[in-house]
C-alpha cells in the first residue's frame, strides 16, 4: 500500500542549524498493516509521517501510495487516499464550525467541495448513528461548535471523520499525547476498531510504549533519521513489554 524508497529530508541545508531529519529510509507497508513507530525526540518519526502525508516534501527518494507515485503531490491532493489525526486536537477539526459541518467536510474529503448544500436530514441521521457508536453521548450535540468539546472528544470525532469518505491509509501522529489517560484509551480503542472494521493501512507514532506494545501488527524503532529495528507481526507478538522499555534504556 505504501512504498517508501530511499527518502531523505534535511532542513536548513548548509546553515549552522542544519537538521538531517530523515537519512535514507526504505519501507514497504502492506495493505492492512498497522505500523507503530517509536523513537526518541528528533529521531525523524514526525518528518517521515509528514512526508507520507505530503505536508513536507523529501529532498530525495520517492513515495508510492496505492500504486501511484505521490512524491510531488501536495497534502490536499493525497487526501484522496490518506486521512490524518494530528497530535493537537485543534488541528484535526475546525473549532468554530459545528460537529455536523466538520463531518460534512470529512464526508467529501476525496471529492470537490461544490456549490450545493450537502447537509440534510439523511446525512444528519447517518452522522448521529456513527457518533453514537463512540458512546460519548455526542450524537445529540451535532449542531454544537466543535470548540465546545474536550480534546479527547475531538480526537475521537476526528478518527470517525477519517472513515466518513473512502480511506485507504490512516496516519496517527501521537493522537493521544495531549489527552488524559481515560480519553487516550477511548481514542486508541476507537482507532483500533476502525482500522480493523475498514481494513485500513495505518501508521501510528507514539511515545507511549504501552500503546506501542498493545496496538498494531508491526513495530518500528527509529533513531537519527533511520530505521533501527523493524519487527513483523510474529516478532512483535513475541516481544515483551520490558524489552520495549529496554530499547530506550
Amino acid at each position, binding site marked *: 500500500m505504501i512504498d517508501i524508497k530511499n527518502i531523505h529530508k534535511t532542513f536548513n541545508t548548509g546553515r549552522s542549524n542544519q537538521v538531517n531529519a530523515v537519512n535514507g529510509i526504505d519501507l514497504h507497508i502492506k495493505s492492512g498493516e498497522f505500523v507503530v513507530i517509536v523513537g526518541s525526540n528528533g529521531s525523524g518519526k514526525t518528518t517521515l509521517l509528514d512526508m507520507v502525508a505530503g505536508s513536507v516534501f523529501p529532498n530525495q527518494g520517492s513515495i508510492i501510495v496505492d500504486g501511484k507515485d505521490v512524491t510531488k503531490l501536495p497534502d490536499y491532493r493525497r487526501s484522496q487516499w490518506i486521512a490524518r489525526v494530528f497530535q493537537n486536537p485543534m488541528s484535526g477539526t475546525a473549532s468554530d464550525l459545528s460537529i455536523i*459541518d466538520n463531518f460534512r467536510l470529512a464526508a*467529501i474529503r476525496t471529492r470537490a*467541495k461544490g456549490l450545493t448544500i450537502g447537509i440534510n436530514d439523511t446525512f444528519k441521521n447517518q452522522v448521529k448513528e456513527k457518533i453514537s457508536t463512540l458512546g460519548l453521548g455526542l450524537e445529540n450535540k451535532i449542531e454544537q461548535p466543535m470548540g465546545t468539546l474536550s480534546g479527547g472528544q475531538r480526537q475521537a470525532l476526528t478518527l470517525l471523520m477519517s472513515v466518513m469518505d473512502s480511506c485507504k491509509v490512516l496516519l496517527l501522529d501521537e493522537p493521544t499525547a495531549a489527552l488524559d489517560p481515560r480519553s487516550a484509551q477511548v481514542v486508541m480503542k476507537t482507532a483500533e476498531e476502525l482500522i480493523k472494521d475498514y481494513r485500513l493501512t495505518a501508521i501510528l507514532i507514539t511515545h507511549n510504549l504501552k500503546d506501542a506494545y498493545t496496538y498494531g501488527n508491526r513495530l518500528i524503532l527509529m533513531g537519527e533519521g533511520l530505521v533501527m529495528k523493524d519487527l513483523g507481526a510474529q516478532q512483535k507478538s513475541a516481544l515483551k513489554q520490558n524489552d520495549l522499555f529496554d530499547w530506550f534504556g
Partner: protein
Amino acid sequence: MDFYLTALLQGLCFSGVALGIYISMKIFNIPDITTDGSYTLGATVTAIFLTHHQPIYITLPAVAAAGATAGALTGVIHTKLKIHALLAGILVMTALYSVYLALMGRSNLPLIDVSTLFNIINISADPNHNTFWILIIFVGIITLFIGYLLKTDFGLAMRATGNSETMIRALGVNTDRMKIIGLALANALTATSGYLISQQQGYADISMGIGIVIIGLGSVIIAETFINWLRLTSIWLSLLLVLSGAIIFQFVLAITLEIGVNPIYLKAVTAVFVLLIVSLPRINFRTAK
C-alpha cells in the same frame, strides 16, 4: 428625519464593505485592507461605464469583476509570495490609486444626466424612499447569495480554511486557492458598495475610499459584539447583524453631526467609536471577574 434617512441609505450602501470585511476578517481570518482601493475602484468603474452610457446591469458585473481582480491580486501576493496580508493589501491599494487616476483621467468624475440604478427604477415617487427600496432589494439579494454560499459545501470549506488550515488541507482543499477566491469575493462585495455610493452621491472621486476599511471593521466588530454576547451560531443572524452594524455605524456618525460636532473631527470620532466598541466588552469582562 431626512438626516437619519440619509444615514440609513448610506448604511445600506456600505453593506457591501461590511460583508466584504466579514468574509476576509471573520471567515478567512485575514486582515485585508485592499478595501479602500477596491471600493474606489468600484466607484471609478461605475462612473466610467455610466458616463459612457452603459446600462447598469452591465456595469455591475464589471464592477464586481474589477473588485475581484484587486482582491485576487492581494490573495496571490499573500499566498504565493508569502507576504503578510496587511502589506499585500497596502501594496495593491496603493497601486490602485494610479489605476483609477489613469482610468478616469482626472481626480473626480461627476454622474450628471446619466441613467443610474436609482433613477431608472421607480418604486416610490419620493426619491429617498425609492432609493431606500432599491437598496433594500439589492442588499437583500446579495445577503441571500452570501448566506446560501456559506451554507454550501464550498462555503463550509471556506469557513474551515480560516478556522483550521491543517484540517481542511488534510480534507483535500487547496487553501491557497481558497484564500485567493475568498479575497476576490470580499473585494467584489466591497466594490459593489462603490457602485452604490457613486450612483447615490452622483460622482466618483479618487479620495472617496480613504478610511473606508474602518467602516467595514466597525460594522463587523459591532456585529461580533452582539454575536458573542448572544452566543449566536446562525450564519443568517450573523449576516443580519453585520448589515445592522453598517447602519448603526452611519447612525452614530449622523448623531455626532446632529449634536454639533465639527465635521473636521468626524474621522477621529469614527476611530474612537470603533475603539469603544472593541474595548467596552473587555473592560466589563474584567470588572465582572
